[in-house]
């Protein structure tokens, strides 16, 4: 369980830090999340929920994915500066796509018209692996926030498609084993896991995690509109005719996550220590070609 979980039944919730939506380049986004996760795990700062976008269209690779598979997008810089005004209209799209390698698992994501979040929590136990309850809690909150603006979404595990797949797998071993797991589609939004959110038959949200010593970092993406760089992946706007800007839904998601997890979010800023760490991590990892091309 995460450190504050035991307090969810208590009268006073745990204090948390909320960092509102802003656009940044790929390397800055990833370095900032890692710096936050480390500081949260050390309990130097409160549990943190951060919303953000990408100042240029960006393909983020899952930690274990091969850069060779990203050839169709092919510009592994990850750190091109651009002007950004804090809304999706501030994204600079000159036809190129930055590439960055995440620290979290899962498949590649084309970030363009998207609400991305990172949630950093301290953990009180040493057990390895995913904290699936964090996936479930955040995604349930996203479902409820979407419902408030007239968008119907559900976890993949509750869909007819999932039930049919389960039935097929029960009579065949074709989808079991390591090879089949690794042969999943390159793009995360073409994959399906139980907690992914589905709207109109398409995946519109997914999350992945990184365990750090004493904590967990969860990344997640909510696909608001289709990108010309991944035209086969419709977003909420195409699937439901509801146009959502990040600032129209981030507060609702934060409030619901806060209630569900017993966290009282208060708007904050990065500490000087986090800013310093972020700059270091950016140079050492996410803006470094060696990191992006390590597989």
């Amino acid at each position, binding site marked *: 369980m995460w450190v504050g979980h035991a307090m969810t039944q208590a009268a006073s919730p745990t204090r948390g830090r909320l960092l509102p939506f802003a656009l940044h380049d790929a390397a800055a986004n990833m370095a900032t999340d890692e710096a936050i996760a480390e500081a949260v795990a050390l309990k130097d700062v409160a549990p943190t929920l951060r919303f953000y976008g990408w100042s240029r269209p960006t393909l983020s690779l*899952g*930690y*274990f994915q091969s850069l060779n598979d990203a050839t169709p997008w092919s510009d592994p810089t990850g750190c091109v500066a651009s002007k950004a005004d804090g809304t999706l209209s501030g994204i600079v799209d000159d036809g190129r796509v930055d590439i960055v390698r995440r*620290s*979290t*698992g*899962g498949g590649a994501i084309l970030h363009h018209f998207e609400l991305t979040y990172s949630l950093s929590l301290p953990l009180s*136990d*040493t*057990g*390895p*692996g*995913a*904290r*699936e309850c964090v996936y479930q809690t955040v995604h349930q909150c996203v479902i409820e926030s979407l419902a408030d603006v007239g968008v119907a979404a559900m976890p993949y595990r509750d869909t007819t498609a999932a039930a049919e797949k389960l039935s097929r797998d029960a009579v065949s071993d074709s989808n079991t*084993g*390591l090879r089949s*797991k*690794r042969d999943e589609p390159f793009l995360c939004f073409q994959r399906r*896991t139980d907690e992914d959110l589905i709207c109109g038959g398409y995946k519109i949200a*997914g*999350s*992945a*995690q*990184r*365990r*750090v*010593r004493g904590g*967990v970092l969860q990344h997640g993406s909510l696909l608001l509109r289709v990108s010309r760089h991944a035209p086969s992946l419709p977003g909420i706007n195409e699937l439901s005719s509801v146009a959502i800007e990040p600032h129209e839904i981030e507060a609702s998601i934060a409030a619901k996550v806060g209630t569900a997890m017993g966290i009282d979010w208060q708007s904050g800023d990065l500490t000087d220590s986090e800013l310093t760490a972020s700059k270091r991590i950016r140079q050492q990892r996410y803006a470094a070609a060696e990191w992006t091309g390590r597989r």
Partner: protein
Amino acid sequence: MSRDTTKLRYAETHEWVDVTQDDGIATIGISKFAIEALNDLVYMDLPEVGRTLKVGDEFGEVESVKAVSPLYSPVSGEVVEVHSDLPDNLEGLNDDPYDFGWIVKVKLDGDLPDTLMDYAAYEKQCSEAG
């Protein structure tokens, strides 16, 4: 011959250590409890032979359920052998974590840390974790 899990030492972070050969080499893997918690391993990274580790250093990483988790070294020393077939045979790690599933061998630098648990203490930790 199967490894006797009651003779192994265990780290709080669920790595097991076998020093029963008394040759100064520690064989290291991850426990059945950890593998069940990881659930559905897909990828694993191993360290390079020759790398020097200190207690608590990250010596590898695994991915399961879209979560990347580090593996922590329970001992200090030099990596002298890695189980290079393991990342492509993770089903074998699931099935047999204490024999086929060994991950690295480390030439010990000094004594084993006092923080390593015996089997009974580790079982207690796991039962308390639920």
